[in-house]
């Protein structure tokens, strides 16, 4: 079956919009079918229940990727991450929707101040569905912002920029002080010890070389592919 996939670039900027609306049945949650008061009164009275539902939804989705994190301890950690203890600094003061950055990301204030609430009909089911969806969206926003510095660190680990040097100190010392280069066999051995880094590094150097020496783009693409195959063969020799 084919589905039409539509991607809105502006929506991607807000990770909360990636959360699809949840579907809930008031009866199964123990909620009455009617509002039994005003919209605000209904949400205030049922807020603790709706908050629990939102946390359950978040934990259920999280345990798909991390099945070992599904207990009460993990849930407590999630609540702490969403509480005011883990508020994130406001980077853009002009942003109108940065309320989820501080305080409890699941608090009712964020639901009530969401502009889309004006479009929700005054019935229990759409109201609680909107409230829980909005809570989950704010949780996504908070968690994604919290993970940003960690993701940058992961990228640095991948690029190995955290390492002071990629070459053994005695080899580096011999070259820098005694002007002595390692033999080809020694160099190949050093590179094969850290194949991931040297594959990327040699590819980068090879590209620079091709940019200078090959004027034809089509030929350069071919040369680049050939270089990559050579690199794979060179660095995979020891593994095989």
């Amino acid at each position, binding site marked *: 079956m084919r589905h039409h996939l539509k991607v809105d670039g502006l929506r991607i900027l807000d990770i909360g919009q990636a959360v699809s609306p949840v579907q809930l049945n008031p009866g199964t949650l123990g909620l009455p079918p009617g509002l039994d008061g005003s*919209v*605000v009164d209904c949400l205030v*009275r049922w807020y603790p229940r709706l908050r629990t539902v939102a946390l359950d939804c978040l934990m259920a989705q999280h345990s798909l990727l991390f099945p070992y994190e599904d207990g009460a301890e993990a849930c407590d950690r999630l609540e702490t991450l969403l509480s005011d203890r883990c508020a994130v600094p406001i980077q853009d003061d002009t942003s109108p929707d940065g309320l989820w950055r501080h305080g409890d990301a699941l608090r009712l*204030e964020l639901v*009530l101040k969401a502009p889309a609430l004006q479009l929700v009909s005054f019935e229990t089911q759409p109201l609680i569905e909107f409230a829980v969806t909005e809570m989950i969206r704010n949780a996504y926003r908070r968690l994604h912002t919290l993970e940003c510095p960690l993701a940058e660190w992961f990228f640095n680990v991948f690029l190995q920029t955290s390492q002071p040097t990629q070459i053994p100190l005695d080899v580096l010392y011999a070259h820098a002080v005694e002007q002595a280069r390692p033999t080809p066999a020694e160099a190949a051995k050093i590179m094969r010890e850290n194949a991931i880094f040297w594959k990327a590094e040699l590819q980068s150097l090879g590209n620079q070389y091709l940019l200078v020496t090959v004027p034809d783009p089509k030929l350069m693409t071919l040369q680049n592919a050939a270089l990559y195959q050579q690199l794979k063969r060179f660095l995979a020799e020891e593994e095989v």
Partner: protein
Amino acid sequence: MATRAKINLDYEQLLAIISACQLVPERKCIRLALDCEELTGNPVFDCLNRFSGVVDRQALQNSLSGNVVQVLFSKLPMHYELLQRIDGDSVVTEVNRLVETIGVNLVMIGFSNGYVTALALVLRTRFPQEWNKFCDFSERQQWKIDIEQAGTRSFRQAASGFHREQVQNQAVATNEANEQSACDSVAGRVSEAEGFTQPAEPVLKERRKSELEEEDDDELINGLVTGTANNTGGRAHQWSFRKFGLRR
């Protein structure tokens, strides 16, 4: 932030007050009364409870003016000392401030709910001592207001007003109790003599009369709210006389 400083309540506490002031039609009382049944007799609670019933009967669709709120105050079955020293405009101002702070319109807060909450917030700042006693009774310590912050002038006024109101309420309560006991005794005699269990006829007449008066007031206030007051009707003139302190 200025609004919060003025109200001096957290957002969550404000939401809790709104929910507590929600009228429960089946019980004919505000939701707070469901939690604390012993609140009856507390002047602040009585003001809120009675005012919620009066506002709810208007079935509001639009915002009220200060004058109409003042009329609604005068329509309460008991005259509360606290309400006599509050003007309708301050309640209307507080409603607007509430809407701005909560961030939703008055329809979502609920018209009657919004006005009762606004009255509660006005009472809180004007009569801090009574409000704090109300918080003690209702076990809502987090709603309390710092009396020193509220000002000593209003504190003294509130203290004297509270005493007078207590005396007045006690007198009204005594009258109601006497009336009820008289009703019971008359009804008992009638039922004993004739084998009926209905209340005595004089009491029924009195009740019908008061109900008719309430209906008159409802019509007039509805006219004020909708802007279609009938000034040519006899009842309107009767109400006008009463408004200016004249007898019919």
